[in-house]
């Protein structure tokens, strides 16, 4: 535990260094301290996962009255593992990236506070510590969105949305946790867990629903997601990477910790609700990702998609545990946890790459990019591998985790209760459908953004970003490849985290090996073998091609369809690529297109210019949130009538109130 405290201390020191050091050295000093702290936290988490120990720490200092309580068990360590790994990368990245507003004292120190809070949230073991770290995380990220508001005016409204949603969420979590203390069990998680069985079932359900609402909104589950596609893209890229990979994971962590850890699983319908949230989120997120043309917005929607899959896993695990299927339940929980870590790595890498693209081309609109593979080869490789992972291409991390999830869901059909089976079925459908949609989205992101010809001068003049930034991106690709090729390495750690999450000690569903083998359920894959097979096939095809093809190669433009010449305007754009899908799902997406034709003066048959505009608004925002906001504004307008600028009236309010109080009391 001492080592973990040292890690937290280093992050705090990095925050102080960022706030105090002079301009020339503060970025480097705070980033070095921060990445050191994250590395140490990573090693501590790894050791806990290897040994299965639980370490605790309590001090009466720091927070008045209650003090700080920290506990790292395998479940918390699993999430610390994810956020510290991404933390290292973002700190490194910041060395190359921080410039202008992001290199200011406030931004640097807030950034390190954000990293610190992401390490404290999964290790907090009392309500006060958790809520304090939670608010620290919310507020620091909120302010970080506003860092560069001078250049990104949209950041203001994004921050407003985020601020309102996160504060409502935090209030809901706090209320839920307080409801749990209504039996006088105190505020430590150990006491809460020991006494939660004395709560009445209604109270427990009430507490869980409140807590679920708060954590699900942080995780970005539909319909509480509206802030996410606004806030994640507007933040500076290292912050987006942390928000989208680690902060959403904290929402998942909270659901597991409270639902399974403190309330011991509760009833089946809780988890069916969680899984249904997941199904809706996965589908909605994937669909919007396919139609987004803003690179970072696309990534943000795909976060909603993956979080949906994770929620399906968590929900399935909870429902199966409550239906007396502990082994399959543990399998589903393992799948969800593995997906959290895999997602943290590849989504972190993708956001950092998006930041690199934005830095190099001054835009993140896919319709203005193209051809970046020639000018930014390293970034292109990072995006290719990470996009492969998110599309669940075999031998990359997304495949391993989604395969596990599928195993859990398919074996879950053996449960007798109908609602659970229906949810499992919906989960399988969502997994299949979103798999296809995600593939479309990322083929689009990579194909339009990095292949073909450049569509703007910014993209044509791009150049590879600095060494620190490419190094950071490369660091985040490692897990995608390693988990993909040798998932067996992680199975012992994963198994420990999953059993700690469910709080049961059943037989492990896995057998040890290089691949994934689900012993009791007779399912296995060997990604290493798949990789060898794939490489062999490629070599054979290449050799056959060399042997049989005619010698003289003919060089033409890529995607040129055999034409001798082509202009960038002839290529697919991000909008046109997604257009067929947009038509298919028009009922859900409600796209709006405008075609504006200007004719030449002489004839209506010849046009001078043609402007096509296509917008896909978030339908849930327009139909669900806007009416609520309109009502709130109307109430606000009414309240403003009291305020007419007359100082006499304001004073009279106070005087009358005083007289009324005197009369009532006297």
């Amino acid at each position, binding site marked *: 535990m001492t080592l973990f405290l040292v890690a937290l201390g280093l992050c705090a020191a990095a925050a102080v260094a960022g706030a105090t050091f002079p301009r020339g050295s503060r970025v480097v000093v705070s980033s070095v301290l921060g990445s050191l702290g994250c590395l140490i936290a990573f090693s501590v988490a790894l050791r806990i996962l290897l040994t299965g120990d639980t370490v605790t720490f309590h001090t009466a200092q720091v927070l008045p009255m209650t003090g700080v309580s920290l506990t790292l068990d395998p479940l918390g360590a699993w999430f610390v593992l994810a956020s510290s790994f991404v933390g290292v990368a973002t700190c490194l990245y910041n060395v190359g990236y921080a410039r202008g507003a992001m290199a200011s004292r406030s931004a640097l120190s807030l950034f390190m506070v954000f990293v610190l809070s992401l390490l404290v949230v999964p290790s907090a073991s009392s309500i006060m510590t958790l809520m304090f770290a939670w608010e620290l995380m919310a507020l620091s990220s909120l302010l970080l969105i506003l860092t560069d508001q001078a250049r990104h005016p949209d950041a203001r409204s994004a921050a407003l949305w985020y601020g309102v949603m996160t504060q409502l969420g935090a209030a809901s979590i706090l209320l839920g946790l307080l409801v749990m203390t209504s039996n006088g069990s105190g505020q430590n998680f150990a006491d809460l867990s020991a006494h939660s069985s004395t709560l009445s079932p209604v109270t427990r359900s009430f507490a869980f629903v409140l807590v679920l609402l708060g954590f699900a909104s942080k995780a970005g589950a539909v319909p509480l997601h509206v802030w996410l596609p606004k806030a994640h893209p507007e933040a500076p890229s290292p912050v987006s990477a942390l928000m989208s990979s680690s902060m959403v994971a904290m929402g998942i962590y909270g659901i597991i910790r409270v639902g399974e850890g403190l309330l011991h699983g509760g009833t089946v319908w809780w988890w069916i609700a969680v899984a249904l949230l997941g199904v809706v989120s996965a589908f909605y997120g994937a669909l919007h990702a396919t139609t987004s043309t803003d690179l970072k917005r696309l990534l943000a929607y795909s976060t909603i998609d993956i979080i949906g899959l994770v929620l399906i896993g968590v929900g399935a695990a909870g429902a199966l545990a409550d239906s007396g299927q502990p082994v399959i339940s543990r399998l589903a929980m393992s799948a969800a946890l593995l997906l959290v870590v895999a997602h943290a790595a590849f989504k972190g890498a993708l956001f950092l790459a998006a930041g690199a693209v934005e830095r190099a081309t001054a835009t993140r609109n896919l319709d203005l990019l193209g051809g970046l593979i020639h000018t930014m080869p390293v970034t292109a490789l990072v995006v290719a591998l990470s996009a492969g992972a998110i599309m669940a291409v075999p031998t990359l991390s997304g495949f391993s985790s989604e395969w596990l999830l599928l195993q859990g869901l398919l074996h879950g059909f053996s449960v007798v209760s109908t609602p659970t089976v229906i949810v499992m079925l919906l989960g399988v459908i969502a997994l299949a459908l979103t798999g296809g949609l995600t593939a479309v989205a990322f083929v689009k992101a990579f194909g339009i953004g990095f292949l073909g010809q450049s569509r703007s001068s910014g993209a044509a003049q791009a150049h590879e970003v600095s060494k620190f930034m490419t190094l950071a991106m490369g660091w985040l690709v490692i897990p995608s490849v390693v988990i993909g090729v040798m998932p067996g390495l992680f199975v012992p750690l994963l198994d420990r985290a999953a059993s700690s999450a469910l709080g049961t000690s059943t037989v492990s569903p896995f057998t040890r090996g290089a691949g994934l083998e689900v012993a009791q359920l007779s399912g296995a894959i060997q990604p290493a073998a798949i990789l060898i097979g794939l490489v062999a096939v490629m070599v054979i095809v290449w050799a056959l091609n060399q042997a049989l093809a005619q010698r003289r190669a003919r060089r033409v433009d890529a995607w040129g369809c055999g034409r001798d010449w082509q202009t960038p305007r002839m290529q697919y754009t991000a909008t046109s690529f997604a257009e067929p899908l947009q038509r298919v799902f028009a009922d859900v997406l409600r796209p709006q297109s405008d075609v504006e034709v200007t004719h030449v003066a002489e004839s209506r048959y010849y046009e001078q210019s043609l402007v096509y505009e296509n917008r896909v608004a978030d339908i849930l925002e327009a139909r669900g949130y806007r009416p609520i906001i309109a009502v709130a504004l109307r109430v606000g307008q009414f309240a403003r009538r009291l305020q*007419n*600028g007359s100082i006499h009236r304001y004073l009279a309010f106070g*005087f009358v109130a005083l007289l009324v109080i005197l009369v009532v009391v006297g």
Partner: protein
Amino acid sequence: MNSTYIATLELAAGAVLLSAIMTLWRRNVRSIVAMLSVQGMALAAVAIVLALHEHEHALLITGCLVFLVKGLVVPHLLRRVSLLDPRSRESRPLVNVPASLVFAAALIVLSYVVGTRITSLSPSSATHLAPLGLATVLVGYFMLVTRRRAVSKIVGLILVDNGIALVTFLLTSGVPLIVELGSSLDVLLVVVVLQFLMVSMRRHSDTDRLTEMKALHD
């Protein structure tokens, strides 16, 4: 000795309230300020009489300070402010003078009704007078609400402050010196700020009637 003490205390405390009502009655800003000066001195007298009777040196110092700040310095500054405007009359208050006086009478009755419950907690010759302080607070607040000129409003604010001070003197023989010092300096500061504000307001809109400031709201 004791009857002299009670009579002086009653006289001084009564003077505080009476001067408050006089400020409502007078329209000329300069005579309003003069009333305020009288009130400050009467308040100081209350503190000093109490201090002599109970042999409290801290209260004696407080009394002298009150005499200096509220009896002399603040009225002097306000007089200088009012000299900036030769036509310094509270021309049309929101509630006219006779009505104001009737209202003040009602406020005094109210404060006696409410105040007797406080004084019955520890009845003594000093605490019996506490409703006078409460009435001064209410009259001051009433002035703050109904008068249009900035100077009159400030006078209302100082009346409130004096009323609170009177209540604390009578109920608890004064608050600690540092608190009293703090609140007196506050009032002084408000008056100094007002002086600057008045000058710039007059340059801006040629009036110090706050009704004209309505256009400034957001």
